């Protein structure tokens, strides 16, 4: 009925956080000892804000396509009250129950998948960081 509104709310929150959280702007340039030239090296690790955008992208993408599905089924209409279930109190109760069960589970699953992605990417980044000095010593 309106289960997609829960992931949409989470998408709004994550987007606001990602927009307001300023990425640390550090100067990664240093003078190379051999050539004497300024060299800029970005860190291998991805910022958390960028990873947060994965979550908001997935939530927005899913919410848009699910909104279309609800339009298809006539559960969402482009005029007030926008949700057909909102016009009848009995339907509203069913809608709220669906939002609190199906909607919350949708948001929770997407967040859980995102947490898994963040953990995997962190493991890869840490492995890369450990291997990098060894590789440079070999050369």
């Amino acid at each position, binding site marked *: 009925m309106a289960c997609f509104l829960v992931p949409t709310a989470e998408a709004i929150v994550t987007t606001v956080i990602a927009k307001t959280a300023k990425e640390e702007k550090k100067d990664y340039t240093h003078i190379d000892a051999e050539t004497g030239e300024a060299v800029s090296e970005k860190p291998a690790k991805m910022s958390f804000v960028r990873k947060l955008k994965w979550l908001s992208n997935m939530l927005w*993408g899913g*919410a848009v396509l699910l909104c279309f599905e609800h339009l298809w089924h006539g559960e969402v209409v482009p005029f007030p009250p926008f949700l057909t279930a909102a016009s009848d109190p009995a339907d509203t109760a069913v809608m709220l129950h669906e939002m609190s069960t199906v909607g919350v589970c949708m948001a929770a699953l997407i967040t859980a998948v995102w947490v898994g992605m963040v953990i995997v990417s962190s493991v890869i980044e840490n492995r890369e960081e450990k291997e990098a000095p060894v590789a440079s010593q070999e050369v």
Partner: protein
Amino acid sequence: MTLLITIFAAVVATLVWYTKPALRDLKVGVLCWMFWGASLMWMIDAVFEFSELGADYFAPAGADMINDGFLGFAVVALALVIWTVIVLVSDPRGTVKAAITKR
């Protein structure tokens, strides 16, 4: 059917993103996020529906299957339209700008 079609679309988009680095600047990743997000959400929908209907969930009526399949393809088409608009607006290769400024 909608869930199945969206999952297939998500897998294809992800494989394209993985195997064609040249297409990554065309924001194929947007399609991956959209299809995977929708697939996960519909998966939850399917689990709840299965808990209500039981084995009947896997034996839908013919008309429902056609409608769901039609919806699935419409969802894929909508996602492709959104992606096309994003590519044209962001214009990562400067093609739109070149076409407009070309005399």
